[in-house]
Structure formats: C-alpha cells, structure tokens
C-alpha cells in the first residue's frame, strides 16, 4: 500500500496517535474520494516520507508520543523536498501553544468533517475527482 500510495498522484498523510480518530479520518477521507495514509506519530511520518512518498497535504496532530507535531514539522523543514508540503494542524491544544507552528491552517478539535474536507480540497484539487 505504501509503494502504491507513494507513486499515486495525490494522497493525504494523516499523523494522529489516537487510533480511533486516525482510522475514522482515513475512512472519512476515502469516502470523500481521497486516498490517505495514517501513521501514529511524527517519527513514523518521517519514515514514511523517507520512502519518497509526497502527499498533497499532511493532517498533523500536535501532541503525540515519540515525536510530536512541532518536532516533526521542524524536521520536515530541514529537507528542501519536504518543506513545501502543506501542513494542516489538528489540535486539542490551546491556540497560544499551537500557534507557534508553521502551518497552512490550524483546525481545533473536535474536528468537523466539512471543514476538514474544505481545507484539504484547497491543497488537493485533484483528489476528490
């Protein structure tokens, strides 16, 4: 699946430690017509990107064990080929804490699917074909 997605033209990377939310998001995105791939933390996400996969957007949770969202974003920025991938932050943290991250949009939990889809749509216009 990873290889297939890595070569797929457009897909979404979901980085979320809560298994239920991660799976629900991936399924909902698929139902909306997007290909998606879910990982449980920043480290897993970096590993995934190292395979050459280039999602059209990354849905990123902030507070995760092993590697949190802030660290993952900083790591991303170090790699020129990854730095340009748009990031949508999903967080239960306060605006003050979440605000220090470099992201296109910050979505505050609880998430609303309509808003998630609208935001994703901007960056992945071909996905929902």
């Amino acid at each position: 699946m990873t290889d297939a997605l890595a070569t797929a033209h457009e897909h979404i990377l979901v980085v979320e430690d809560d298994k239920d939310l991660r799976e629900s998001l991936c399924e909902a995105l698929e139902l909306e017509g997007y290909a998606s791939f879910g990982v449980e933390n920043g480290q897993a996400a970096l590993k995934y990107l190292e395979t050459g996969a280039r999602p059209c957007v990354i849905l990123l949770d902030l507070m995760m064990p092993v590697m949190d969202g802030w660290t993952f974003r900083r790591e991303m920025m170090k790699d020129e080929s990854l730095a340009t991938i748009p990031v949508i932050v999903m967080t239960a943290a306060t605006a003050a804490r979440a605000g220090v991250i470099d992201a296109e949009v910050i979505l505050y939990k609880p998430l609303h699917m309509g808003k998630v889809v609208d935001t994703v749509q901007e960056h992945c216009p071909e996905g929902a074909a």
Partner: protein
Amino acid sequence: MGALENTRNRQVGEEAVDLLALLVEQVVDYAIFVIDEDGKIASWNPGAERIKGYCADEIIGQPYSVFFSEEDRAAGKPTQILSHVRAHGRFEEEGWRVRKDGTRFLASVVVTALHDRRGVFRGYAKITRDLTERRQAEESARLAAAEQAARRQAELDEREMRRSRDQLDLILRSITEGVVVQTLEHKLVFANDAAARLCGFHSAEALLSASLQQVLDTFEMLREDGAPFGRDELPARLALQGTPASAVVRFRMKRGGEERWSFVSAAPVFDGRGGVELAVSVFREFTERRRTEQAWQVLAEASAALGSSLEYQTTLKQVAELAVPRVADWCSVDILSADGSLEQLAVAHVDPSKRELAHEWRRRWPPRPDSTAYQVVRSGLPELLAEITTEMIEAGAPDPEQRRLTLDLGLRAAMVVPLVVGKKSIGVMSFVAAESARRYGTEDLILATEIARRASLAIENARAYTEAREAVQTRDNFLAIASHELRTPLSALSVLISSVVRAASQGRLTKLGPEALLTRMVKAERQMAQVARLVDRLLDVSRLSTQDLRLEREQTDLADIVRGVIARYEEAAAEAGSRIELAVAGVTTGWWDRSRIDQMVTNLVGNAVKHAPGASITVSVSSGTSGYARLMVHDEGPGVPTEDHERIFGQFERATDSDNNRPGMGLGLWLVRKIATAHGGTVTLDSEPGSGATFIVLLPTGDRVAAAATEQSPAHGGKKIVRT
C-alpha cells in the same frame, strides 16, 4: 554712851584714819591726791606718781592744771571743773590728761569737794585712774570680736558661694540639656555629663580631659540632611564670632555609627569691654523623638512594601529586608512548618558576607526546643535580649565552633517577636543588633512587634493568595486536561458521523455499503462510550478533589479483579508489544470497595501498558504479612527517577515531560493513592531509571468492624458512611 565707849570709839576712829592713810599711800592703780582751795596740789600718792610721772616733791604745790592739755587749759577747763565741784560737790569724767613727759593718757577722773566735820570747805579730793590699758584691752577685744565676726561672715559668705556654685554646678550637671563652654581658642572649659554623653564620652571629666585627636576619633557632626558641618558653620564657632546661632546637629559615633540628634543653641559671653570671651552651647537632644518619627516612617514603608506583593516568598523576603538597617543589622523570618519545627525562610543582613555566615550558623545549629525562638512561638509573647554578653553566648553555645562563629557574628542585642495570625503563632521574626552596636529597649520592642503584626498579616495574605492561586491553577489544569481529553474522542465521533451525513446528503451512501456503515456506527458508539467514561471520570476526580472518598465495602477478591483488568488490557498490551503475566499466591480477599479497587488496578495496569510499550509486565497478588494483601505491578519500562517518586502521585502530574503528549490526565496515580489510602493502605514506587518500575500496594484485609473503625478514626478524617 559712856566714857569707855567714847574712848573705844575714838580708838576705832584713829585706827580707821591710819588704815585710810595706808590705803592712799599704797594704792598704785589709782592716783589719789588732794587739791587745795586754790587749785594747787596738796598731797600725792604712789599711784599718782606711777600714773602721772611726777614725784611728790616736784608736784606738791603746783597747780593741778598741769595735768591738762594746752587746749583744755586755754579753754579754762581746770577752773570750770573745780567751780563745778564747789557748786555741786562732785565731778566725774573720762578725759584726756597729760603726763609729766607730755604724753597723753585717757583718764577716769572723779573730783570730790572736801569738807571738814564742821562743814568748812577744805579743798578737793581727786582720784584718777589711767584708762589707757583698759581702753587698749577693750579696743583689742573689740577688734578681735570684729575680726571674729568678719571671719565668720567671710566663712559664711564663702560657704554660701560654694553652695551656690555647687548648686549651679549640680544644676548644670543634672539638667537634661547638654551644656559646654568654650574659649576663644576653642578650648572646652566646662561640659556637663549630658553634653559628654551626646558626644560619645561617658562623663564630663572624660570629655574635658580628652585630646583633640580623641575627640575627632570619637564622633563627627552632621547636618540634618546628613552632610558634614563646615568647621566655621557650627553654632559655637558663630557664637565665638559674636553671633548667637542654632542648628540641628547629628552626632554620629565613629565606632558603631550610632547617631544622636540634637538641637544646638550657642550664645556668646562678653567680657567687661564688650569683647567675646566665651561661647556657651546648649544641646537639646531629640534622638528619641527622632526615633519615634523614624519608627512611624519604617511602619509606613513596611505597610507599603508589604502591600506591594502577594507572592509568599517575596513577602517573606520583604519582611526581613524591612528592618535592615534601620531597626536591626540583620533580621530573619522563621515560619513554623507542618511538623512544628521552625524553618528559616528569609534573612536580610547589612553585610552580605555576614548573611552567608548567618545562613551557615543557622544550618549547622538549628534552634533547640528550649531556645528563645521556640519559647516565643509557644507563648506568643515577644522577647527582648537588651544586651547579649559573651557569657550568654558561651552558655548558649556549648560547641566551641558554634561559640566562635557566634562571636564572629558580633551579636549585641536581639528582639524575637512572634508572627501571629488570629491567636495562632505562625513563626517568629528575629531582629539582631551587631555592627551598629545599638541596644534595644522597650520602644524598639514595640516597633518590632508592630512590624511583625503587619508582616503576619502580609504573610497570611500571601499564603492565602498562593493557596487560592494554586487552587485556581489546579482547576485550570483540570479544565484544560479535561477539555483536551474530551476533544480527541469527540473528534473521532464527529468525523465518523459527519462523514456519513455528508455521504448521505451527497448521495454517496451506496458507495459505502451497509457493512461499512455498520462498522462506522459501532465505532461511533464506542467513541460515545469513551466520552461518557471520560466525563464520569472527570466528575469523579472533581468530586474527590474537594471531598473524601466514600467506600462501599464488600467481600472482594483482589486476584479476581486483577484477572478482569488484565483481560481488558490484553488487546492494548498486545498492540503495544507487551505481555502481561499474573502471579497469585495465598488468600487475597479483603473487605474493600470493589469498583474502587478495580479502578485502582486498572490505573496501575494501564499505566504500565502506556509507559512500557514492548516491555513485559508482571502483576502479582499475594497475601501479605499481618493482615495485608499485596499487589505489585512491575514493568520493564524506562523507570522513574528517584526525585519524581513522590511527585507522580500528585494531581495532574505526569511522569515525564514527554508524557504531556501522551493521552491521559495525570490523575491515574493520584487516584491510586487516594483509593489505597481510603482503604487504610499504602502505595509506593520502587524504580530506577533504566530498570523498570514496580508499584506496590498494601491493603489491610480487615473485616467489617475493623474497616468501619479505620474509616471513622480521626487519622482518616471526617464522617464516613459505612454501608453494610
């Protein structure tokens, strides 16, 4: 009368004449002689010769006027006297007469007319006595008496003078004003003790005998604003130039820096020619008044400073710093801790290097229960150590090192006053005099007590504020964590439902199919249950934060509960790559609240699964010693540093910083301890970083009666309802 009788009479008469002749002839103290009717001398006796200097031969027949002075003779006095005698029979006077050698003498003279038996006038009898010696004696006696009187008067005068001088001296010495008198050469010629004390000398004699250098070394004189006086600006110098002057003068002792405030008036004393001879200066000391004013100022500043912060530590520091240097050279604040010991929380010292010494001293020799500090805490009454002597230090510090360090601190006097809130002592403030050599009196103690009273209020306010702030912080943490914890399952729920709704509304539901739809709805249901569980748990925690845990006890088997919990966690553990093993030994039943014990075991096992992914977990349940059951949850995870062993049992505490990114509220272990304690048990952690962690719970197995007794014992506080 018979013839015989006549004869005898005649004989007696003759004898009398003879005796009379003898008297006249032999008396030498009186000149007795007769003057005839013509004024010539008719008889002469040895007394006359002795007094007048003439012998009988040369004077008999001479006029008696030779005895008179030229002037008396010229005035006719001799004739007048005799005429008077002829007329009146007698003349008496004290008058000046002339001796043969021409010298004068004062004579007492009686001249009597002589008549014979027939009454015929026969001449004059003159009796003269030389009064010169008597006069001289009288004169010397008079002179002696006058001299005596004069001497007595002189003595009286001198005594009076001495008395008034002593009195003046006494007055000048005993008046509260200081008085000094200076000459034009600025030499002190008078000073009283009050003036001497003002300048730092113990007596007027010490001041008057001091050399200029000694005087200069002892004190300096400052203006009211603290600037030094120019030499010619001092009132006494101005007075010596002829102008009365006055000024406020601060006498500052060079040793110790003690200051005495005085109002000085100086006036010139002029000599007879109108030139200035001396200057008299009068000092009216008002150090006490000044101190009172300063005390008020200190109190005003204290109120302002204490009102400026509600931070507990800052307030304590300010309290100590307030007193230094105006009331004390160092000041410390000790607060009673929970175990009843005094803990020094703030020290201020004029000399920062000494502050370290004070810290060191206190660290090495904390106050003993019989020390002044503890006595003050117990009695709630201040203590004044007006003077700390070397003997007192030696008696109070048996350790030679302590004695040496104490002497190095140079303690001179101290005041220890209680910090009281309501009627309860919460600590003490110690004011210590050292470098400044000041002494403390009742007024200082009143000031210190007043400072302490204000400080107590500020400390209590700060404490209450800190507690309130911590409570607010706890509530905020709770709300932040609660909302964070709820947002994730709510997000999953929201995504699940809204995606289905979106698909349905966009006609894409068929694409999903009934099986997938069911899966999503089951997931949604699970998320709702998760949300409900979280809400229940939050409400439980919220309740437990403010009240004690209520137990519903029943016969419960700990091993059964543990089996159930492990079964519930099997899947999660497997996902985390862990395996949970169980070991049961002996009887593990007790009189416990089943659901709370379940919650406790769940938290401990869940904690192990969360923190030790991929590591093995062992849960062992055994019958412990003497009526206790023991539960041990061991994991081979990263472990917990020793310094965090207690902290992680706190409310909203997480094991590590990275845990902040893990799900969880930091309440699990707090609840574990709460539940274990409510059952009369304990929970401890045995762990070192790198070698896993073991949580050990000991629960008294008890019975109904024992369990009820445990819950109602005061040690566990409050009223409990025991349901049977």
